[in-house]
């Protein structure tokens, strides 16, 4: 089953066509080979790999590999120019949240942040590390 409809694929291809630098998607898979137990009818890890494969097929600036280690999995790390900068998605990025992953790739592909100058000034004042987690659902 295709992940994107033809019109969605065209739109993503267009958006990815504007990337100014390469973006690498690195997938962390857990030790557990699925399918899992009970009601789980999706192999979350394999499906995550399929999504990043499909995304990277839409642009020569987007690449993917499987290989990171993570405390939660599956996880996808978004790495501008292959650099680990602490941007990740834990879980299978599907439904509405696939848009977050795509948006993350687009932002990572920019040389300049799309945040407002005031926001960037405020962030520049930060004098300690900060971990921001956002709990989401696919619908």
């Amino acid at each position: 089953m295709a992940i994107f409809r033809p019109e969605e694929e065209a739109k993503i291809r267009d958006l990815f066509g504007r990337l100014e630098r390469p973006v690498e998607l690195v997938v962390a898979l857990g030790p557990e080979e699925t399918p899992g137990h009970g009601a789980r009818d999706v192999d979350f890890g394999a499906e995550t790999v399929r999504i990043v494969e499909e995304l990277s097929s839409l642009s020569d600036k987007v690449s993917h590999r499987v290989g990171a280690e993570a405390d939660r999995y599956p996880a996808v790390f978004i790495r501008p120019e292959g650099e680990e900068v602490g941007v990740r998605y834990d879980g299978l990025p599907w439904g509405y949240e696939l848009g977050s992953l795509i948006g993350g790739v687009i932002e990572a592909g920019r040389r300049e942040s799309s945040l407002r100058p005031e926001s960037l000034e405020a962030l520049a004042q930060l004098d300690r590390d900060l971990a921001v987690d956002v709990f989401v659902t696919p619908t």
Partner: protein
Amino acid sequence: MLLAYKAALASPRIRAGAIEASEFPRLADEMEVWAVPRIVVDGVPQWDGSVPEPVFIQRILSATFG
């Protein structure tokens, strides 16, 4: 979610993760996730819901200093 990613990409001090709540129910329970998006800073739940960029930035920074 995208604002958190943008903040992390703009600042070497910030890391940002999306966590699919239904796949990590124990963690979601610990963070008392009843509505999404739920924003957690340094392991402490802060607020639920999408907010405009200036509010988002102000809130994550005040969570640091507050």
